[in-house]
């Protein structure tokens, strides 16, 4: 009997639950050098802003124990170039396309959502209200229930496609924020974005990245992400997409068991461009070995000890 890996998230059909994390896969067009991107459950683009952004000066990244810090500063090519240069590839990439957006003010998000959701070939929008790397915007909204709700409401009002709210772990009560975006109309929630971190080089006595603070990602944050996915998925009715430190098929299973309906892989693809397809093969092998016919049997299926 064939396995079912297909999953429906807020009306978006994913052929399998493995997506690319925003900012870790460019605009999707680099990866076809390495593998058939149509095997992905979906592509999530780098955060797009209304105008191009240059971001912070180098060094923007630092390697840390089982993880890394980044302060890329949302550098991106901006809305117009994205539409002209990158959408043609995405339209024919053979899988679900989710465009991630970031703004300085709630109205920026609304403008982005209105325009992007009207493009052919865009299946959903992920709203980044959780970037710890930019002074204005981003986390400012994601850090309070009210701020998060305002952005999501504005976006929902104009968007023609489902909305995924991407949450920050840098908050006191992630469940409260999750409920706020659910009430504001979000169709799905993704979490987690990076954790605020810092690294200093004792040799030079300098910060390791120019922005001083950066976002921590990679295996180091996985237990934090799994805990948050568990908590949030039990508190809201909309589907949760889990991410943070995933680097293999068993990590994917862990997030599904915790309550995620789909996952994203970010940092792990830097070292291994084909981590997505390898993880998919490993997920399939796990299902066969454990007698599961349908991916949905795994979602939230964690057992007490």
């Amino acid at each position: 009997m064939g396995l079912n890996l297909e999953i429906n998230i807020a009306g978006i059909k994913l052929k399998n639950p493995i997506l690319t994390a925003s900012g870790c896969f460019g605009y999707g067009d680099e990866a076809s050098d390495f593998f058939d991107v149509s095997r992905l459950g979906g592509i999530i683009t780098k955060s797009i802003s209304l105008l191009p952004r240059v971001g912070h000066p180098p060094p923007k990244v630092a390697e840390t124990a089982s993880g890394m810090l980044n302060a890329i500063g949302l550098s991106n090519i901006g809305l117009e170039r994205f539409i002209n240069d990158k959408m043609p590839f995405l339209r024919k990439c053979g899988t679900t396309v989710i465009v991630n957006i970031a703004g300085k003010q709630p109205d920026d998000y609304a403008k982005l959502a209105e325009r992007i959701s009207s493009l052919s070939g865009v299946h959903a929008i992920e709203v980044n209200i959780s970037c710890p790397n930019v002074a204005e915007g981003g986390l400012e909204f994601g850090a309070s229930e009210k701020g998060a709700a305002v952005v999501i409401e504005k976006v929902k009002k104009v968007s023609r496609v489902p909305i995924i709210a991407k949450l920050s772990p840098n908050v006191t009560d992630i469940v409260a924020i999750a409920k706020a975006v659910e009430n504001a109309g979000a169709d799905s929630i993704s979490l987690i974005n990076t954790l605020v971190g810092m690294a200093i080089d004792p040799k030079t006595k300098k910060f390791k990245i120019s922005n001083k603070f950066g976002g921590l990602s990679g295996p180091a944050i996985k237990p934090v992400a799994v805990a948050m996915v568990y908590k949030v998925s039990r508190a809201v009715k909309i589907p949760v997409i889990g991410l943070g430190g995933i680097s293999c098929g068993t990590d994917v299973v862990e997030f599904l068991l915790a309550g995620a309906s789909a996952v994203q892989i970010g940092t792990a693809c830097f070292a291994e461009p084909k981590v997505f397809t390898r993880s998919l093969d490993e997920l399939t092998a796990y299902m066969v070995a454990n007698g599961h016919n349908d991916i949905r049997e795994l979602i939230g299926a964690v057992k007490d000890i």
Partner: protein
Amino acid sequence: MKCSGNFQIASIERLSSNIIRLEIDSPPIAEQARPGQFVQVRIPGKETNIWPRPFSIHYAGDGRITLYIKILGKMTACMAKLKNGDILNITGPLGNGFAEPPDQVPLYLVAGGIGLPPLYFLVCILLKKGFPPELIHLYSGAKSAADLFARDEIVALNIDYRLATDDGSCGVKGLIVEPFAKDFEKSKSGAVYACGPMAMLAAVAKIAEKNFCQLSLEQLMPCGWGVCNGCAVKLKSDNSIVEDERGFRLARVCKEGPVFNADDILWD
């Protein structure tokens, strides 16, 4: 199609206290490799390092790539302990290589320390295409004799080959830019290629002035295949890539580079 997979070490040699030479059986990468391109390397089973490490291709032929590696920190220290037959995970070839010189003009290639490999590969390919060896001048500098390498290979090319070390233990004492500057002053024309520390590249670019001059840059590279933007640097503005109102653009060293025209670089 670029390649990402496991390949076997055909030979590994410790050349001095801090340099190793590696030959890796990797036909799909060797076939595509061009001078100036690099590979990302990981040691399978040692995934404590989150990022792979970039190394320039020193030579590619007969299904193999050759790398020279300076032992600097965590990963390179582990690489020094590898043996013939061990497996490395390699992604590549990555980046844009050097452009060929515009004409049969004198070529000046300036290598600082471990910046030699891409320049050596370029010379090999140009000679193969019939470029006259007497027009090629290669300047190779390092801290001391123990940091110089591939000397026999270069001597065998029959090109003009100069050495300099900071401590005078080999070649002339001082910076490698000095002998290059002296020679270049005489002709004031030719094509210049350089790879090495930023300060050396800045000096080379200044000397080369308006001549054809290509430089290979280094940045930390989390991915090496263009998806993270971690390696992006500012270049002078043209109409490509990310531009903003301040008149510069961003280029990813791993993708648009690592080789750039000296004219495009914004020196701080």
